[in-house]
């Protein structure tokens, strides 16, 4: 019987093809939007994480409370051992020490007198003998001249500031800053390369040097302001990050040490909470919108189709089906339509999302001088969710649409189903 009905369904293009197209279109859009939004939001989160916050960040408690002031006098000490124990406790994560600092760059002339000066916001990261941080911060494409530091004492700086200070590659500059113990710190660097980010905040005055140089410069022996933690080869997962922070912080709850370390998940830093919450809810939002929109469309299509089919329904009642059976077959038919439409929609949606993930859409020209840390290439992100998310609106909307449309069968008296035809 079911087979017989499905045969009819497939032959009646207005009942099969059109709803399948509607479902497939809705599913395609759902799949594409889901992968695109989760890609874009995820990438924003990742670039913020890679650049400043990490997926989690370990600091001293007072540093975390004043982190916007980059208070290196409150930095973590004994970083070697701390990092080792972090690695042991969280083997699924990678850890990177960083020092953020502010200061003044002074370019001397041949006589040692100041030629030009500029304010810098600096970062000390592992640059020598490792490309891990260069990769993580995606610095390669931002290098506009020179090369990455290859020996101690070399540094990278913003191309814009370099020009403003009339510096050339290889010039010596002095960093003037305050050391960890409140002392005045002076340290000489050689400019080895210049960077351009297209982000005003960074291009105004960024300098990046190897963390060991920065330690020497600021008297921060075996210390660092922050240790960033990243889920190895994985995107930010708010639940895991929160769990990690909770278990790490539990060890220090009763610590009397005023400078005890504290771990903060990304969602609690730099107003990232909103973005994280948004990314977590984005699937639900898209799916709900499409379920409602498609169910309304399919409900109406089902009503029209149903009106046309009163002859069939009437006949089926006459040859001995109950209304209940007829209703169930309508729902079963819609389920089949929903599955076929969803499969097509998911496949096409993935085919569209795929180039958006691998190639992406370069929006850097539109994003010139933005103030946000936003990836310059918009990319989709196909996750496990992407594969099944389309089925939710695809199937629910057809079934809900059919159920709503089918109620008419119950509302109408059996005999009237025939009258509709005779009229």
């Amino acid at each position, binding site marked *: *019987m079911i087979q*017989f009905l499905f*045969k*009819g369904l497939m*032959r*009646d293009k207005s009942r099969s093809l059109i709803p399948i197209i509607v479902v497939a279109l809705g599913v395609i859009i759902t799949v594409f939007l889901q992968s695109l939004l989760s890609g874009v939001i995820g990438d924003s989160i990742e670039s913020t994480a890679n650049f400043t916050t990490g997926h989690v960040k370990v600091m001293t408690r007072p540093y975390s409370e004043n982190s916007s002031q980059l208070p290196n006098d409150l930095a973590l000490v004994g970083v070697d051992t701390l990092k080792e124990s972090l690695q042991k406790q969280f083997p699924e994560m990678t850890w990177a020490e960083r020092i953020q600092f502010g200061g003044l760059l002074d370019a001397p002339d041949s006589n040692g007198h100041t030629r030009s000066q500029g304010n810098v916001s600096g970062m000390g990261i592992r640059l020598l003998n490792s490309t891990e941080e260069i990769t993580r911060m995606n610095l390669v494409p931002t290098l506009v001249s020179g090369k990455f530091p290859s020996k101690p004492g070399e540094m990278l700086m913003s191309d814009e500031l370099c020009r403003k200070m009339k510096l050339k590659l290889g010039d010596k500059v002095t960093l003037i800053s305050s050391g960890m113990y409140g002392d005045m710190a002076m340290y000489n660097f050689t400019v080895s390369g210049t960077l351009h980010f297209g982000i005003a905040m960074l291009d105004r005055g960024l300098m990046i040097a190897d963390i060991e140089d920065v330690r020497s410069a600021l008297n921060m022996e075996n210390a660092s302001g922050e240790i960033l933690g990243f889920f190895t080869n994985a995107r930010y997962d708010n639940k895991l990050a929160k769990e990690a922070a909770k278990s790490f912080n539990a060890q220090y709850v009763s610590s009397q040490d005023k400078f005890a370390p504290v771990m903060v998940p990304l969602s609690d830093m730099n107003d990232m909470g909103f973005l994280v919450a948004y990314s977590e809810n984005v699937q639900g939002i898209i799916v709900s919108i499409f379920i409602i929109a498609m169910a309304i469309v399919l409900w109406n299509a089902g009503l029209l189709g149903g009106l046309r089919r009163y*002859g*069939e329904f*009437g*006949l089926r*009642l*006459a*040859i*001995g*089906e*109950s*209304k*209940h*059976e007829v209703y169930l077959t309508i729902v079963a038919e819609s389920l089949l339509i929903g599955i076929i439409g969803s499969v097509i929609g998911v496949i096409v949606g993935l085919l569209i999302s795929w180039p958006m993930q691998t190639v992406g859409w370069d929006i850097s020209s539109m994003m010139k001088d933005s103030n946000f840390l936003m990836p310059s290439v918009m990319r989709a992100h196909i996750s496990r969710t992407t594969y099944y998310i389309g089925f939710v609106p695809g199937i629910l909307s057809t079934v809900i649409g059919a159920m709503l449309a089918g109620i008419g069968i119950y509302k109408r*008296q*059996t*005999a009237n189903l*025939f009258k509709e*035809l*005779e009229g």
Partner: protein
Amino acid sequence: MIVEVKNLVKKFPIGDGFFTALKGVNLVFTEGEFTGLVGPSGSGKTTLLNIIGTLDVPSEGDVIVLSKSVGNLNPKEAAQLRKEELGFIFQNYNLLPVYTVFENVEFPLLLLKMSAGERKKRVLETLEWVGLTDKVKSRPSQLSGGECQRVAIARAMVKRPRLVLADEPTANLDAANSHHILQTMEKLNRELKTTFIFATHDEKVIGYLHRIIRLADGQVVADDSPLNPPKGDFKSEPSEGTFTNNTSLNSSPSGRLGGAL
């Protein structure tokens, strides 16, 4: 006795009140009848037929169909009765356009959970009775009105129901086709002893009826059983011939009946 209608009243809600379509109908139908409910449009023929066919329920009184009280059947039992014992023929054929002639006729058998082989045998045999063996694979849209109604008759007959209810079966047909399908049905009535109840106001149909129940305004106004069923038109039809032979139809699936039509 196959159907007994007892003090049947049917009221339809209209606005704040009711419209009484049947006003106390009493009738008895016996097995093998070839009977028509005859009356002007609006006299209650369809309403009565629908209640006999368990597609509608009485407001008052009762209808006993094959020993079952229609008013007391739940929807499932009513569906069961229709599935096993009743056949319906409609004015507008009501064939399903996406299915072939074969599939349309096969449809009622699917509900009876018959094997594919048995279904095929039955369908072909029934199509032979109505003379449509050459249209097995056609779609309804490729058939004439007369052919469509013959498919509908085959669909009603394929499960060998005891009672066939036909509501204005000739209303959309020209004279020749009307006579053709009436002969077919009369033949089936005679050979298979299937009971037929028609609703009609078509004079051509009335000519074939063995019993005429006249309805007017929801009431039975006359119930005649002509001693000699009028057969004038019948005789004049060229295709009428070997049909009156009274061997069982079931034992001769090929040839005789098909040839007669």
